[in-house]
């Protein structure tokens, strides 16, 4: 046979080459290929010298301590699972619209006041629950929306590919999220929360792109979508804003509890 290429030798080293026996017998007979293969082996052996710091036996328990808080939170009282995302009762445009009434009402507190006529107008039509209690509901809903979006994106970028990637499930999720997202973004904008609006805008662009793409993607097309999600840092930003909203929600809950007691 001809001298094997460098690529064939690399595959040979990892036991993934076609015609393994042919290459083996060539290496026996051809000194220059043998020398070059030995050089390759030496390099790859040297790579093994890369040290990895040791972790003790208790490391696993330590990791559990770190993740268990978040896992317990995810499990109870409501466990967020990809499939359950489709069955969320309040998760609809109607639900979001109802919330926007709350958003407008709470504008003066959570967001800087822009339109002073909005608040009393809507306040009149709202039930007399405390403002803080309503704020908490709102924060929870936005937090949920961000969490659902985050999960949908994670599911998407982790989709399994065997040449063709079917993203139809993630797509139908994305379509529903787009509508809700648009409402939140518009009101965030109106209420002057530019940071929130900009993250929601990035998220919306990504969701629209997912919704509009074909549901069967070649692995190249899929890699491109993944790359774009990654380049825009959408996932990261959604995560950060999401945890800010969650923190604020917890704080409000604490204040509420303190008031009650």
């Amino acid at each position, binding site marked *: 046979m001809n001298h094997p290429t*460098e*690529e064939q030798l*690399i*595959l040979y080293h*990892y036991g*993934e080459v076609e015609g393994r026996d042919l290459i083996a017998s060539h290496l026996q007979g051809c000194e220059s290929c043998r020398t070059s293969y030995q*050089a*390759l082996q*030496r*390099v*790859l*052996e*040297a*790579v093994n*010298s*890369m*040290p*990895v*710091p040791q*972790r003790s*036996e208790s*490391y*696993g*328990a*330590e*990791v*559990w301590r*770190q*993740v*268990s808080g*978040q*896992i*317990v939170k*995810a*499990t109870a009282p409501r*466990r*967020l*699972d*990809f*499939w359950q995302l489709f069955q969320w009762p309040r998760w609809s445009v109607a639900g979001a619209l109802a919330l926007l009434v709350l958003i407008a009402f709470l504008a003066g507190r959570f967001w800087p006041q822009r339109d002073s006529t909005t608040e009393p107008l809507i306040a009149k039509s709202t039930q007399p629950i405390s403002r803080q209690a309503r704020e908490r509901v709102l924060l929870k809903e936005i937090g949920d929306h961000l969490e659902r979006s985050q*999960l949908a994106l*994670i*599911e998407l*970028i*982790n*989709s*399994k*590919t*065997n*040449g063709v*990637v079917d993203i139809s499930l993630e797509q139908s999720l994305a379509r529903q999220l787009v509508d809700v997202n648009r409402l939140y973004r518009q009101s965030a904008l109106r209420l002057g929360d530019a940071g929130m609006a900009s993250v929601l805008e990035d998220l919306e662009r990504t969701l629209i792109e997912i919704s509009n793409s074909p549901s069967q993607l070649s*692995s190249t097309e*899929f*890699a491109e979508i*993944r790359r774009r999600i*990654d*380049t825009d*840092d959408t*996932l*990261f930003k959604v995560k950060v804003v999401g945890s800010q909203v969650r923190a604020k929600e917890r704080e409000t809950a604490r204040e509420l509890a303190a008031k009650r007691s």
Partner: protein
Amino acid sequence: MMEESDAALVTRAREGDQDAFRLLVERHSVRLFQLAFRMTSNEQDAEDLVQETFLRAYKQLSRFQSRAGLGTWLYRIAANCSLDLLRRQKRRGDQERAVEFDSEEAFPAILSGAPAPDQQVYHGEVRQKVESAMRELTPMERTAFVLRHFEGQSIEEIGSALGVGPGATKQSIFRAVQKMRRALEPLVNAIP
């Protein structure tokens, strides 16, 4: 008592048994840390990756199929988490953090017997070269190479884990090996 299998623990964890998931975390953390460290060359990043991997795994538990083996499945998730992280770091030019890692100080040589001082110097030099060559790899090259070289995963498995075709996976591995050769060959071929 016989140790419960991963599959049995996954079944229990899916039913909401957190203790079962705890056992899985305890069982797989050390190995995942090794993978994560090879991906990042940074202890803190590696620890963060291990946590993120288990959190993602927990959320996706319903999609785990037992024929893949839990270890393989976790490495897939970890590989994707590190790919994300490496890409983020690359974009942010967050390299200065990685540079503070000093392999010589952090890890005493694990050499058999008592090596001659010049041999120690040589090993130290090789390690540093490996370290810096690894940093020269693109996120995709590094991830694919670590999975192939250290984890022994097949090109097909790697491609499917990272969502790229076998051709692209091979190319990433070839480029990684070529970069390692360029960096290391002069050094390793200098020894008798």
